[in-house]
Each structure stands twice: as structure tokens, then as C-alpha cells.
């Protein structure tokens, strides 16, 4: 274990973000030296993979669009199989600031028991202003989650997160399909991992289309609320080694 110099992987999920994804990779090379970068091209129909490869990043191309959860989980599996100590998710739309990875890492360095560090837009004053509708939704989730996990959670939808080995192996085994961030907070809680939040700057989206368009936000709310309440009633939310597989090959009703 090299606690002084952990190997860190930056996972950049990108779906049709040929404009911004290469920019994100370049900013990672520039502002987060020593961090390996892998771009997960989530079945893009534009030149995202070629553009990302041209910047020198490793590119994993999913054969078709899996959604953000499936794409990021590919990153968890990759990090686990290649023995990374830490993994940070940096969205391909340019919303997350590469220089802030150091902020996340500092929290984990300071308290090695921390399994997941979330960058929050709402802690402290960083001038981030999301549309009012989205902020309302985020605050509803934040309120519910804070009650459930019994500690303040200010930005449960932020994807800008740093994970250690324990969190990587948990999420490599099981990560929610779509809109995974809120559920991931619950899973971390159920598995008694330690989560911390830290204020970070975030930018407006650099381009492309958000995975949460306004038309989908109602579905998003309902789906995540369902996931929260189902998650509450799950005795054990995740398969442990030796359990039946989450996608069993056998037939059963």
C-alpha cells in the first residue's frame, strides 16, 4: 500500500460529448498530474471516442448506450481490475473542475477512513446557481437522505466523487442503473462506509445535452424516490460474495 502516493484513476463518462470530453481530458492532464485518465464512451454516435483518443487518454467504448450508471460502473470495474487505490468521477460535459480533485483527495488523505468524498455545490459559497427547478429537486433529495443516513448531505446528485478501494469494489459489484448518485449515497450508508462532503467549484455545462433534460426530471424524481424507499426496505441492498448473482442465468419467477 502506497498511502503516500496512491494510484488514482479519473473516469470520464461521455455520451455524445466530442466537443467537451477532449477538453476535460486536457484539463485533467494539466491540473491533475499523476492521475490516469480513462474515458468511458457510452455508446456515442458522434466522434467522442476518436476525439478523446486523440488527447492520449485511454478510451473504453461501450457497444451501446448503457446510461450513466452502467458507464460509471465500467470505470469501477476497470479501476478494480487494474489495482487503483482511488477513483474519481469527472463528467465529460466539463462541469467538474479538474483542479478540485486535489480538494477531494485532501479530505481522504486527512482521514484515511473516508471511503467516498463528494464534491458539493451547496456547501460554502461557490457561486453555483442551478436552475430553480433542479435545485428544488436536489434539496428534496438532500433533505430525505440527511434524515435517512442521519448526517447532513447537501448535494446528493453531484457526480464529482472520489472513491477508495472499498467503495470501488462495492460499486464494481453493484451500481444503480440510471440516476445512480442518490442511490449510491444510500448504498454507502447501508454498507457502513464513510462518506464526507467538501465544497467545490463547479462550472456550467460546457456543451452537449444533460442526461437529465427538463422533460425527464419528473421521471427522475419519481424513480429516485422509489429507489430511496425500496432501498430502505432492503435488508441487504447488494450481493455479497456467495449470494445469488444479481443477474441470474437460471429461470425463476
Amino acid at each position: 500500500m502506497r498511502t503516500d502516493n496512491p494510484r488514482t484513476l479519473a473516469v470520464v463518462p461521455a455520451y455524445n460529448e466530442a466537443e467537451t470530453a477532449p477538453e476535460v481530458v486536457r484539463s485533467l492532464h494539466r491540473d491533475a498530474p499523476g492521475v490516469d485518465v480513462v474515458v468511458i464512451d457510452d455508446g456515442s454516435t458522434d466522434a467522442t471516442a476518436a476525439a478523446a483518443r486523440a488527447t492520449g487518454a485511454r478510451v473504453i467504448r461501450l457497444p451501446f448506450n448503457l446510461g450513466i450508471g452502467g458507464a460509471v460502473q465500467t470505470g469501477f470495474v476497470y479501476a478494480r481490475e487494474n489495482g487503483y487505490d482511488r477513483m474519481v468521477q469527472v463528467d465529460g460535459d466539463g462541469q467538474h473542475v479538474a483542479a478540485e480533485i486535489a480538494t477531494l483527495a485532501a479530505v481522504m488523505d486527512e482521514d484515511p477512513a473516508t471511503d467516498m468524498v463528494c464534491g458539493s455545490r451547496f456547501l460554502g459559497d461557490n457561486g453555483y446557481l442551478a436552475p430553480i427547478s433542479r435545485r428544488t429537486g436536489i434539496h428534496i433529495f438532500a433533505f430525505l437522505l440527511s434524515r435517512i443516513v442521519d448526517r447532513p448531505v447537501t448535494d446528493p446528485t453531484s457526480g464529482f466523487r472520489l472513491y477508495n478501494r472499498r467503495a470501488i469494489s462495492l460499486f464494481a459489484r453493484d451500481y444503480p442503473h440510471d440516476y445512480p448518485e442518490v442511490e449510491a449515497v444510500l448504498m454507502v450508508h447501508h454498507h457502513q462506509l464513510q462518506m464526507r462532503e467538501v465544497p467545490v467549484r463547479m462550472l456550467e455545462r460546457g456543451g452537449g445535452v444533460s442526461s437529465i433534460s427538463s422533460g425527464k426530471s419528473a421521471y427522475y424524481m419519481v424513480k429516485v424516490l422509489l429507489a430511496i424507499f425500496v432501498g430502505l426496505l432492503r435488508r441487504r441492498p447488494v450481493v455479497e460474495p456467495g449470494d445469488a448473482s444479481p443477474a441470474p442465468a437460471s429461470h425463476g419467477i
Partner: protein
Amino acid sequence: MELRIQLVSIVAAAGLFVVVFEMVRRRRLLERYALLWLFSALALLGLAIWSGLLERIASTIGIIYPPNALFLIAFGFVLVLLLHFSLAVSRLTDQTKMLAQRLALLEERQSRAGHDVARERADARDEDEAALEPSSRP
């Protein structure tokens, strides 16, 4: 139960059974997905023929017109079948996701290991798609 509706019920249930059985015989339908169908068809056929049992069921649950009980039971079977398919679709979705992830990881590993063929293929695929998307190139 009136004879006409009884005949219609018998013919419909028997027809369903024959169609499903024939699909399995031609390997168009897997046995595991046919079992529920065949069981439903047999149960409905049995109730249609043995109208005494159907009438007793109807009066027990308070249905005045016995064929309505047959419809209710058929509806129940349809619900179970739909749930069964939702489960099957969920399982397939999970399995497909894992396959896609494994495939993508393998392709990346292969191209990193310097397999020229894989790299050429990946590059060719990138170029094809880039050519289809002229606006994305500066």
C-alpha cells in the same frame, strides 16, 4: 352456463393451447416461457369444460354470471404472465449491461496489448463515425 359461451370458451382456450404448443414444437418459443402459457390455457380449458366447478367458484366469490368468473381468472393469468415477462426483461437488461461492460473492457485491454487488428478496427470505426458527423470536426 349457457352452451354457446361454453363452446366459445372451450374453443378459445384449446386454440391458445394448440398455438403455444405449436410454437414450442417449432422452437420459436422456449419451454421456460411456454410453461406459464400452457398452464394458463389448460386451467381455462378445464374450467370451461367443467362448468360445475366454474359456477361454484363464481357463486363463492359473488359473481352472478359464471363466464365472468372465467374472464376474471383469465385476467389473473395475464397479470402473472406480464409480471413474469417484466422479471425476464429486468434480468436480460442486467445481463446485457454486464456483457457490454465486459466486452468494452476486453476491447480496451486488447488494443492496449498492441493487437494491431483490434486497434485498426477501433480506428476504422472511429473514422466511420467521425465521417458521419462532419459538424463535430473543427
